[in-house]
């Protein structure tokens, strides 16, 4: 940690365009500009538009936090989208039977922990690279959708399920936004004040050094996968309770949004570097880009290409940055 800050201190004496771009400050300014543009461009002024936007933000935030934590350790989870679908389906299935939120939320959490734990065991116990393991799990999940009763659909959900997603404060702040803000605040505190957070950075920065310092990387990663399961389940509930029909495969592909948000927010894809508030800014940016594209009349399939380009650009810029850092270090 100390060495890192020393290098950074040395570097800060010179102007670095690539470095400046990746700083969260500039991102925040960019987000605000985009927000203003969107605000003046669209029917965003209406309360309904704002509510839809906040709903998008609120279900993306916990999952993006989860992905950020996973990416911080140098792992990745591309099965998070389908995992979310399974969690949401489980919750909806239980809610359809007539149970209230104090039953279906724990069910979703349990499913999330199970699936996250499965990923974690495959990655940590058997040393399988996380991207391949979770790529395989995507297909296992997609297969499960077919095996589920009624093909992964739950229709005509009553208010016992949807009240959470449709209740709003002052007619425009959805309650789910408050929930996700609370989660975000908790994790900000968590990353700042706990020993576990330090371990995450240590494992991501240099796994071998972390081992020598008495940290068990596998244990940290395993715990993170379990935590990710919980957060994905929360995201699933925030996402699906806004709808009266739950379709398990509607979140397939959403993992790219989470990864984009995390990477845009400055989380290094190689692990060890990243901030949670960066991720929050990334979430806002992703939502704004999606909304703007919809309002400007682009078809939804443009978003795939745009996401790919964004990830590539950011990753390229950070790579250029890293190269410079390394060169300085050697000198």
């Amino acid at each position, binding site marked *: 940690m100390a060495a890192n800050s020393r290098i950074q201190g040395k570097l800060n004496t010179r102007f670095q365009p690539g470095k400046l771009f990746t700083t969260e400050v500039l991102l925040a300014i960019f987000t605000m500009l985009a927000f203003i543009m969107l605000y003046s461009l669209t029917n965003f002024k209406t309360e309904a538009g704002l509510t839809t936007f906040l709903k998008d933000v609120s279900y993306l935030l916990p999952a993006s936090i989860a992905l950020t934590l996973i990416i911080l350790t140098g792992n*990745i989870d*591309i099965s998070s989208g389908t995992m979310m679908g399974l969690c949401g389906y489980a919750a909806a299935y239980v809610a359809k039977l007539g149970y209230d939120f104090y039953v279906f939320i724990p069910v979703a959490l349990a499913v999330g922990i199970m699936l996250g734990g499965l990923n974690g065991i*495959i990655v940590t116990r*058997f*040393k*399988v*690279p996380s*991207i*391949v*393991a979770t*790529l*395989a*799990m*995507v*297909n*296992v*999940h*997609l*297969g*499960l*959708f*077919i*095996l589920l009763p009624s093909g992964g659909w739950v229709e005509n959900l009553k208010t016992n399920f949807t009240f959470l997603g449709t209740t709003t404060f002052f007619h425009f702040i959805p309650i789910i936004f408050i929930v996700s803000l609370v989660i975000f605040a908790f994790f900000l505190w968590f990353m700042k004040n706990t020993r576990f957070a330090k371990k995450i950075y240590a494992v991501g920065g240099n*796994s*071998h050094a972390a081992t020598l310092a008495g940290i068990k990387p596998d244990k940290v990663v395993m715990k993170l996968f379990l935590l990710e399961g919980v957060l994905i389940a929360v995201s699933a509930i925030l996402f699906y309770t806004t709808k009266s029909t739950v379709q398990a495969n509607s979140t397939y592909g959403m993992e*790219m949004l989470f*990864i984009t948000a995390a990477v845009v927010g400055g989380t290094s*894809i*190689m692990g060890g570097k990243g901030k949670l508030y960066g991720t929050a800014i990334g979430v806002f940016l992703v939502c704004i880009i999606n909304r703007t594209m919809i309002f400007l009349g682009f*078809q939804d*399939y*443009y*978003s*795939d*290409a*745009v*996401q*790919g*380009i964004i*990830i*590539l650009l950011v*990753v*390229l810029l950070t*790579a*250029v940055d*890293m*190269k410079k850092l390394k060169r300085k270090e050697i000198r």
Partner: protein
Amino acid sequence: MEQVVVSKRPKFKVTYLMVLIVFLLGLLGLMASLTEGTILKPSVLFGLTVNVVEIGLMALSLTFIITTGGIDLSVGSIMALCAVILGITYEKTTNLPLAIIACLVTGVACGAFNGLIIAKTKISPLVTTLATLSLFYGIARIISGTKIFSTYPEGFKVLSQKMLFHMIPYQFMFFVIVFLVFAVFFSRASIGRYLRAIGHNEKAAKFMGVNVGATKFLIYTLTGLICSLSSMIYLSRLPAAKPDIGLNLNLEAITAVVLGGTNIMGGVGNPSGTFVAVLLLGVLRKGLQLIGLGGSIYNFILGILLVICLIGFSYLNNSKKKHSRS
């Protein structure tokens, strides 16, 4: 310690290939008993080889990439993009050679784009190709919109309809030839050794005099080319170019490579294993089709198969070495 591992490897490889072939025959027997022998008819048996050619070609070039410790998740998207480009060029100009050239150029350009980023910037291949996966898929969707390009000249379909001795399809012959070329290059040419060297220890390979960047660039570009060839073979069989033909192909190709005995961590590659594994997947898919189970069950089984393979291989590697590569 490394010495011991290296000396043991050839022995392991040979036995694993045998195990795989036995497994293939066993699966064939199982499917034959489940379908009451339908799958053993020559027309069906050689017919199923047609379906695996595209996956097989991709899996072969992926074997090279995975041997270097990299991965290419964007193969399916490149193939879809090439198919769409071929379709749209032919529809606009009705000039088949031009369309084919456009398709090949697209494939090479996509592969080179991947290769350039991976070789030049040291970004991990999986992130790069995960991003280009959605990038190429998105471009294909933007180009095609909701249209499906399905008009092709008669001459284009000839490839898929002619058979050698009225039995062996030409595509399969092509696949076998490509496989032989790849296998020879992998085991006999210096490039094969370079690939394994890079997979084992990139830095050591560099000091050994291997041009790591150029080698990586070459194999990713080769994969792009192979993908465009696959897209043409696909279109000659099913003349409908649309962007989602490539979805999940990356999983299938990676499963074939891993099942074939190539180490996902790099360093150990096995083109022959990939070849047998591709046939195995073809038998599995055709068998499930004949039994009457849909494509999603196949994907489900594929996912589970990949997980089991990964776990099994890493267990074998770990028990051999005690310490995992980190």
